[in-house]
């Protein structure tokens, strides 16, 4: 067995693989069904980026908080959300995780610590730091993970929030999924440096850059960061370099529209995080190819059931239009 994998429990490796596959197949199901125009909300797919949520969340407990963004399906699935409430939310149904009021960009699963996903870039970052402040004030051993992209690093609120988290040594891990594009604007057009993780030094906190397509590397870096946070050592900034295969929004690739180079996409598809991990696990006899196929069949069945559930679920009722604007004070 190769060195890196040797240091990770087999069960964890299997879970990471399974999580990545669940995310990929969930997203591919959307690609397949989106043309039916029954999912009537914008979808921001994370195909190509699965190793980051899978590797990070393998270190978390259900009670740990996760804050996520508009590209949040993978984060919810990795944190333990079931397909049914997620799929039903995409279909705008009352059985959706947000009762049909959020859509793809606004997912929540408080039982699994997912406290909501914001579609204002960077907007979830301070809320995640606030969650960490809350658990720290209560003396809990709870860690908060905040997922965001390289676009959020452009926002002032990232720097405001990281500063506070480091100052107060809060139990939070900042995970920047650097896919090198904010919508269609490349990182080089927006930032004078390419290593986002290095900015952590300015806030007297550790920063680490990892290959975001290597789930084992993501797992190990985030394990260290999560342990540090849980022990009161404060925040870490993890930059995971990765690439989204689809366009910013929608189920299609975007090179034909001229947004990005086809060569670039081909290069990154050759670095598929799931294929690479599968090869390593198979070579190390951790999961056989046959078991992988069995796993995929199980996920496919679960997805079909989730789609059927979502499609047959009722839409929100008329009275739901004006409910939940304010929380009850009862």
């Amino acid at each position: 067995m190769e060195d890196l994998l040797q240091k990770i429990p087999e069960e964890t490796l299997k879970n990471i693989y399974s999580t990545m596959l669940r995310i990929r197949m969930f997203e591919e199901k959307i690609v397949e069904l989106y043309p039916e125009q029954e999912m009537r909300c914008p979808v921001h797919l994370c195909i190509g980026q699965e190793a980051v949520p899978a590797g990070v969340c393998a270190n978390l407990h259900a009670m740990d908080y996760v804050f996520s963004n508009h590209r949040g399906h993978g984060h919810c699935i990795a944190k333990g959300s079931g397909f049914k409430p997620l799929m039903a939310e995409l279909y705008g149904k009352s059985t959706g995780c947000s009762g049909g009021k959020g859509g793809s960009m606004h997912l929540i699963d408080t039982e699994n610590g997912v406290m909501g996903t914001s579609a204002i870039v960077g907007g979830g970052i301070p809320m995640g730091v606030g969650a960490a402040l809350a658990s720290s004030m209560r003396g809990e051993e709870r860690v908060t993970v905040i997922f965001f992209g390289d676009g959020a690093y452009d926002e002032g609120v990232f720097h405001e929030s990281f500063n506070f988290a480091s100052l107060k040594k809060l139990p939070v891990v900042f995970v920047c999924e650097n896919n090198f594009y904010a919508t269609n604007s490349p990182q080089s057009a927006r930032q004078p440096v390419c290593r986002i993780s290095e900015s952590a030094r300015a806030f007297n906190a550790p920063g680490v850059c990892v290959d975001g397509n290597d789930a084992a590397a993501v797992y190990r870096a985030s394990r260290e960061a999560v342990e540090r946070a849980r022990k009161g050592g404060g925040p870490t900034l993890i930059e995971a370099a990765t690439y989204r295969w689809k366009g910013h929004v929608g189920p299609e690739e975007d090179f034909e529209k001229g947004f990005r180079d086809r060569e670039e996409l081909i290069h990154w598809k050759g670095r598929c995080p799931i294929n690479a991990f599968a090869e390593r696990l198979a070579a190390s006899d951790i999961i056989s190819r046959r078991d992988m196929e069995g796993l995929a069949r199980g996920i496919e069945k679960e997805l079909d059931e989730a789609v059927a559930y979502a499609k047959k679920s009722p839409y929100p009722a008329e009275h739901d239009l004006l409910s939940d604007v304010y929380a009850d004070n009862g």
Partner: protein
Amino acid sequence: MPWTRTYRNRDEFERAFPQNAGVRGLAYRDAILEATVELMEEDSRVFVMGQGVDDAGGVFGTTKGLHERFGKGRCIDTALAENGITGIAAGAALCGMRPILAHMRVDFIPLSLDQIINHAAKWSYMFGGRASVPLTIRAIIGRGWGSAAQHSQSLQSILANIPGLKVVMPATPYDAKGLLRAAVKDNNPVIIIEHRWLYDHTGHVPEGPYTVPIGKAVVRRAGKDVTIAALSYMVYEALLAAEELKGRGIECEVIDLRTIKPMDTGLITESVKKTGRLVSVDTGWRECGIGAEVVASAVEGAFGSLKAAPVRISLPEAPTPASPALEALYYPGKKEIVYAIEKMVRAV
């Protein structure tokens, strides 16, 4: 009732002491501090944060000494990062705490509108009621001494436009304490806008816990000829105007709106049905302002009773000037209210 009368300072309160026998007078600023202390004592989830909350001044005295009493862990001085800090407070609220975020000036709220409007206000609805943000934000309107364009704004109408937010503007010490308590106990984001010129105002404030309901206006003075719907500091100007007009044979009913959102339109229309005339008096601007909402509520709810076109008294459509000469022209007060009402009543 004693708390319907408020005095501009402690001297006035004490001069009128025969009327106030047996009641405790407290300044507005001290009423806020007392409410905060009581809330922090009774609920470990309550904490205070904001720039300068633990300094010697303690946000004009309203947070003074909290850090000594409850520790710096519950009275958190913060960086000048209004949007981030607001989001941090919102996140803590989302995850079970009851933060009170204090801003020295309303003018700093625009820096944090993303977290207030896009996040705190939306979290309940956007997630189908699965989560809520019980966040209290205090912000103070400045006025005078050349505070100028960026330290004296009244931005309540921007906030009142947003579903999911509640906005209150207490005018009396009694309400300052009761509405702050109600805000912290509310499961939604509540913004409390205080006026710096009210801080020395003294009135009866009971010791111990009580709340003033959010969403309820109150009649401060009954009258049959004209309804004046005022808010915050302008309630006093309205009461002064009403007193003067009484001498000229015009009886004004003065309503203190107390809550801007959700507005107690029922009390406004009920009063207008009686008087047939309406003047709104706001600390903010006219266009799309609170006065517009007050007038609309009367037109919608008491159209047939109106004997004259309603009048809005508000700031002129310009930022606040610094020069004392211009400042004096800028702010309307008793004189403008009296003039508007005389004109309105005599015209009929």
